[in-house]
């Protein structure tokens, strides 16, 4: 698979079809993968693909990264889950379909965090998204590397995130509130959640608008609550549950619970799943006469 990946990268760079291949490479000790930007065909051998390739590299396609855009047309190595984000970026007119060459990587799952890797992939170290993945054979691509997989996701979604959402749903609103206040209390306002998210592409985030300061930037309970709620709302109907915000959170706030709850709510209210069809628009930015009105009381 890696040979095919490198071969394709070399070909794309040599032909001039793309000027940069955004992919994964090893760190110095070859213990962790890290994003790499290959601009010379002779460096294509640095590209790797394995279960440690957790990062969703689609962030580098967004307008925040003017220095990467300046390199030229990009090719990107993307798992199915990462492609979902590219699909949303296309549907929101952030990326042109023809503006990026998508090298889809067939995937058998990745680790939840790279630190968990002990040489073998097993379900216990995979995130919930992998257990229920319906895009292990990537769905929107220009080229695919890796052998087709015949994995079919379970009919009823499984995994820790779903279990915990069910537990939380059983609680009273005040118990749930207490749970989240405590979880958010650890927030240190490092904004890793936002920076890791390719759908948080605003060049000026609302938290940076300080005349007046709309969101309190202090890492106190009120400021933390405002930030986390605002971010959740801005991702409703758009989030693809890639899990990068939770993975990046240095204080382990279970953001995947927020994200998956939003996914379920949007699916229920609008029969919409983000990240599958680049011609469809997220429900929060379109009006349809069929939209439910049962929330108006």
């Amino acid at each position: 698979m890696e040979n095919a990946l490198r071969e394709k990268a070399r070909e794309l760079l040599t032909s001039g079809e793309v000027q940069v291949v955004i992919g994964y490479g090893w760190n110095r000790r070859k213990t962790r993968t890290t994003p790499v930007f290959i601009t010379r065909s002779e460096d294509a051998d640095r590209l790797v693909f394995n279960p440690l390739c957790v990062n969703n590299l689609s962030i580098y396609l967004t307008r925040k990264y003017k220095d990467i855009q300046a390199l030229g047309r990009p090719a990107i190595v993307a798992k199915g889950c990462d492609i979902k984000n590219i699909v949303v970026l296309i549907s929101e007119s952030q990326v042109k379909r023809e503006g990026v060459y998508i090298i889809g990587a067939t995937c058998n799952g990745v680790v939840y965090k790279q630190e968990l890797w002990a040489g073998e992939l097993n379900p216990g170290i995979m995130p919930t998204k992998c257990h229920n993945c319906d895009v292990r054979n990537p769905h929107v691509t220009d080229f695919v590397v890796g052998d087709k997989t015949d994995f079919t996701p379970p009919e009823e979604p499984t995994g820790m995130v779903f279990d915990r959402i069910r537990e939380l749903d059983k609680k009273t609103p005040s118990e749930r509130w207490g749970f989240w206040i405590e979880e958010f209390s650890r927030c240190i306002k490092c904004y890793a959640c936002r920076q890791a998210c390719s759908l948080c592409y605003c060049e000026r985030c609302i938290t940076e608008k300080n005349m007046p300061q709309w969101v309190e930037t202090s890492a106190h309970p009120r400021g933390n609550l405002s930030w986390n709620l605002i971010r959740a709302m801005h991702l409703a109907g758009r989030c693809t549950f890639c899990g990068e915000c939770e993975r990046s959170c240095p204080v382990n706030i279970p953001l995947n619970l927020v994200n998956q709850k939003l996914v379920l709510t949007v699916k229920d209210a609008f029969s919409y799943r983000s990240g599958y069809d680049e011609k469809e628009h997220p429900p929060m930015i379109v009006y349809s006469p069929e939209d439910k009105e049962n929330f108006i009381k």
Partner: protein
Amino acid sequence: MTDKLLKRENLDKLIGSVTVGGGVFVAPGMEARRVVFREVTRADEMTHDYIIPVNSYKDWVFPQTEVIARFAIKKDGVDLKGEKIEPPETVVFGARPCEAASLASLRSVFTWDFIDEFYTRREDRLTVLTVACTAADDECFCTTVELSPESTVGSDVYLKETADGDYLASAITDKGTAFMEKYSTLFEGASAEAKPKELFIPEKIDGIDLDRIKKWLDNKDHYDDPLWAELSRKCFGCGACTFSCPTCHCFDITDEGTTYEGEKRKNWDACQFEHFTLHASGHNPRDAQFKRWRNRFMCKFNIYPKKFTSTGCVGCGRCIRVCPVRHDITEVMEAISGR
């Protein structure tokens, strides 16, 4: 100075003795599946199996958010009152020798051309009890930045674990001596049998030369070297590294409250944030992420060593462990050393 023995079973009493009078005892403990420095009131809230906590204990001398003044706008003017702080006695137990060295770095900047009492008053009340390392992970690089598990700089009391899980304690500073005297009933005479466990000294990274790095950075032509973009283009600009770094010290002042009254807060800030250097005009001198990362590196390996005698980087490895894109500062150190 002869070593004294602090028995593991006496930790509970030590914590109790510090906290009973309103003191704060900070030690490594589990929280949300991570080992972190946090305030404890009992020994069983502590953990002893850790390399280094994910957060820095700088939070207790330089809190992530604190009120520094309160304001009220009245008809006849603005009423602005500075906040006076009277910090409690604070004890950090289980610091690592690398991080202990960082307090001098924070002090350098907070007493540089202005005495920041919000910092100094807290640090004056802080006693650091360091436990020397008997293990390390791939990210530890203290020996590469001229420190080691044997360094006592910045520690008030330096402890070595014994095979029984007790601690051989030696006072390093006057503050440390005073601390051991104050709680002298818990620091017993050590018998000859109490032998410390062997310390684990991480291997120095061969290709790294701090002097060469500093000299290379000194040459202004290198400021625009393509190396910066090549090595740090992947940085996505969160503040996880700076917020977990024991020497990063930048802060922002913000007003909170209503139009007529509120508070001025001093909050952690990060040079990795895009708006850190954004001018009111809209111009940003560090307009790409790799330039912001270059600043972080320059600060630690050029600006700090030139301005202060303290170190800008203590090799704790937190920034590497916490980085969502695994940007490894030692890889940049190595690349620059090879120039």
